[in-house]
């Protein structure tokens, strides 16, 4: 036990995990509260307004469901990457990280198509839309945009991690830490998909 750990007598690893995953867990907790505020705001507006737009028809819902499946599958490949690095299989780790990045990119492309449809076909902007509910665009694009930014950052982050693993510069804990971030992005979508899309289905 080093001098600093001995001073506070909590041991070198008080939560049973390393400093890097613990730091990521704390980031995840704080970021979860940010998304919680946005989700609660959106859901409040949705429930309190009987004229809230329902722009998501069958095609949009199928696309959003595909996006959900893509993100869930990327979480599986990320978990497999963590399992591979634990067994010391670096090439398998890099392969699984590449699959995760590809699925993340697929999610971004599908999401971009959805945004394009809303902006160009449905004429939704941040401050106006055909249904005269200006808050819809601001809250929808704010919430899904923040999530898409997280996915984009995650793809870059995983690319950096994969490159470093290929050079032998990162170890198991680093891949685990990047995995925590990616799974968190997936976890947040598990709330955005039902609360934003499924609550506003066009019958």
């Amino acid at each position, binding site marked *: 036990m080093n001098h600093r750990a001995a001073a506070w007598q909590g041991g070198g690893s008080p939560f*049973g995990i390393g400093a890097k995953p613990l730091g990521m867990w704390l980031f995840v907790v704080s970021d979860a509260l940010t998304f919680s505020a946005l989700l609660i705001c959106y859901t409040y507006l949705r429930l309190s307004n009987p004229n809230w737009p329902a722009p998501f028809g069958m095609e949009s819902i199928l696309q959003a469901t595909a996006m959900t499946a893509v993100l869930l599958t990327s979480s*599986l490949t990320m978990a497999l990457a963590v*399992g591979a690095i634990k067994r010391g299989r670096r090439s398998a780790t890099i392969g699984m990280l590449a699959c995760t990045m590809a699925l993340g990119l697929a999610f971004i492309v599908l999401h971009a198509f959805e945004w394009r449809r809303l902006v160009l076909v449905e004429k939704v902007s941040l401050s106006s839309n055909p249904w005269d509910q200006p808050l819809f665009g601001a809250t929808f694009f704010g919430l899904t945009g923040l999530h898409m930014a997280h996915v984009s950052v995650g793809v870059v982050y995983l690319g950096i991690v994969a490159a470093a693993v290929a050079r032998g510069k990162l170890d198991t804990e680093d891949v685990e830490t990047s995995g925590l971030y990616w799974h968190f992005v997936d976890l947040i979508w598990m709330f955005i998909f039902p609360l934003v899309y499924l609550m506003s289905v066009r019958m």
Partner: protein
Amino acid sequence: MSGAEITTGKLAGVWVALLALTAIEVVLAFRLLSPVLFLVILLALSIGKAVMIAAWFMHLALAPRRLSLVLFPPLAVFIIALAAILTDAKP
């Protein structure tokens, strides 16, 4: 956390369960449920999915319980704030 491991079979099982819960959500979206009832069902399913992702994909099931306790407050804040604010959301 690094020493313990979750098998590939278990991860695949969790993935299938998450996809199945998503399919249930989508089917329910096309039933004519009241918004509040639908919201309650969706939140229950979403929290269940989030717990599965945290427990198995994020390996929280293998982590010491004190780490889980660190993560509990934000979930509690989310549920309490949601319950408190949404009761005011009357059309």
